[in-house]
């Protein structure tokens, strides 16, 4: 079996080796499964699927040997967040509440698309319960831990995919994002994570959180890898009433490495001066903006009006929609939910029909305001998260209600936004910037992220993961 340092760290590199014949999917998958087992204490997976993964790897190798090339994901090991249905394992949503038969043993369309592209599903990755709340050690599911410091949070809710990508247990995977759940773990664990435009990727086969907010996004080390994943994931599906019938461009070809002609807006009020924004984050992101300028972008400060209200409107929308889904179970099985999850979901009972409707009126207003901002800019750049990963013990479910938030605005408005590693705190924890684009302009935000990553190496840093058996 290959040593750690010899394995490719990106999907693009793995694809090149697999195509060249210098690496087989069986070798790659087997080596990563060994890592998964050794790093079980990081809590990245609810269930690992070694048999089906190795079988899929063997199929991929056999196909290649017979001249079939399914593209850059062919034979590449991935993780799937455990609120997304797969045929080879039950979906738990990390909860004692979800019915074991949920998902009906079939792949969600997005998983089927990845398998059609030849991807190898290594396992179901840990999520915050029902994609909200915080881990509850009393419920029997793994506690995801930050591979840079296991005493610190891995973010959420797509925690396990984030940990697995950062720790090199897989080369990429799926997360979902309703209020930052792809970008939060990407920021905490130090890799790239793309929240796609609402409707870009079909979300049927996913346990809902916020019906009008949910999206499935790629999580991987680099922007290029996210582009390769999105290429297979994106596109209309009639089974999702929110799926958009919008053409899917060639994402990788948009990554030119330069930003000539790209107009970058930096919204200073709120996003760079909010109470609670950590100085290290502010400095790292502003330094990253200078790198974008070096890459050819024109940069100017701007204002995103009502940013704080947009964060609140997203939270209200999510609370109301999630409560509609969970109310019966909350009323009958309150104690079966994790202690943080039920407090988060229970907030939905405190909002009125007026509150929800008003949030949707504000949503129209905010989208209009953003459209005006984007007449002057191609992308906006903000911090992803206001501070480095907190200690797990210090987190409380009410904290994020009061903290500044830079991610929910783009769920409310449906815009694409990518989290990009851009530094390290004095404590050795990753820092992250966020690049936001127009509707369905994933290619734009990935282009900016890729150009940045061509000039920096933050996305390629890997934590030293020592053997951590399951607790």
């Amino acid at each position, binding site marked *: 079996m290959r040593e750690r340092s010899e394995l490719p760290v990106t999907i693009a590199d793995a694809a090149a080796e697999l195509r060249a014949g210098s690496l087989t999917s069986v070798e790659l998958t087997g080596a990563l499964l060994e890592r998964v087992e050794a790093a079980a204490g990081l809590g990245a997976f609810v269930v690992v699927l070694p048999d089906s993964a190795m079988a899929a790897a063997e199929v991929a190798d056999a196909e290649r040997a017979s001249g079939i090339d399914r593209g850059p994901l062919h034979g590449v090991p991935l993780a799937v967040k455990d609120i997304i249905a797969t045929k080879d394992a039950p979906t738990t949503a990390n909860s004692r509440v979800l019915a074991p038969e949920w998902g009906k043993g079939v792949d969600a369309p997005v998983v089927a698309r990845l398998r059609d592209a030849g991807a190898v599903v290594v396992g179901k990755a840990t999520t915050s319960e029902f994609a909200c709340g915080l881990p509850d050690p009393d419920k029997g599911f793994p506690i995801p831990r930050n591979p840079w410091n296991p005493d610190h949070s891995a973010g959420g809710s797509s925690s396990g995919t984030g940990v697995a990508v950062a720790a090199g247990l897989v080369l990429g995977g799926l997360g979902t994002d309703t209020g930052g759940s792809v970008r939060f773990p990407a920021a905490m664990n130090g890799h790239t994570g793309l929240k796609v435009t609402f409707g870009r990727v079909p979300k049927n086969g996913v346990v809902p959180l916020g019906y*009008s907010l949910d999206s499935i996004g790629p999580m991987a080390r680099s922007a290029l890898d996210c582009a390769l994943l999105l290429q297979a994931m994106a596109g209309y599906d009639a089974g999702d*009433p929110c799926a958009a019938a919008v053409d899917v461009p060639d994402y990788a070809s948009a990554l030119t490495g330069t930003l000539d002609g790209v107009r970058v807006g930096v919204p200073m009020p709120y996003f760079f001066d909010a109470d609670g924004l950590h100085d290290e984050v502010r400095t790292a992101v502003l330094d990253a903006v200078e790198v974008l300028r070096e890459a050819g972008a024109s940069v100017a400060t701007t204002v995103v009006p009502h940013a*704080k*209200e947009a964060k*609140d*409107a997203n*939270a*209200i929308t999510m609370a109301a929609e999630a*409560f509609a889904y969970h*109310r019966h179970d*909350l*009323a009958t099985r*309150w104690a079966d939910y994790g202690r943080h999850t*039920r*407090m988060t979901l*229970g*907030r*939905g*009972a*405190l*909002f*009125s029909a007026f*509150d929800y*409707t*008003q*949030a*949707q*009126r*504000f*949503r*129209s*207003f905010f*989208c209009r305001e953003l459209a005006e901002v984007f007449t002057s800019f191609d992308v906006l750049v903000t911090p992803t998260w206001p501070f480095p990963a907190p200690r797990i013990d210090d987190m409380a479910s*009410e904290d994020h*209600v*009061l903290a500044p938030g830079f991610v929910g605005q783009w769920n409310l408005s449906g815009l694409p936004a990518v989290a990009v590693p851009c530094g390290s705190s004095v404590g050795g924890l990753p820092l992250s910037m966020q690049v936001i684009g127009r509707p369905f302009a994933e290619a734009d935000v990935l282009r900016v992220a890729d150009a940045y990553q061509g000039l920096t190496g933050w996305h390629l840093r890997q934590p030293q993961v020592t053997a951590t058996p399951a607790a």
Partner: protein
Amino acid sequence: MVDDPSTVKALLTIAGLTVSDDELARFVRLHPVLRAQADGLAFADVADEEPAVRFDPQIGVAG
């Protein structure tokens, strides 16, 4: 009073939720924050906006 414990308790009861005393206290502490967030969206510029909701009247119609 929006932060009156009886208001929060009533809302939770109407929703069918049975919570512990500690959880009730946490909801009561949080309620004014949530109310301020919701009330902060009701300003004049939004008055003429349609809510961002749509539906397909042909849901479930064969063909």
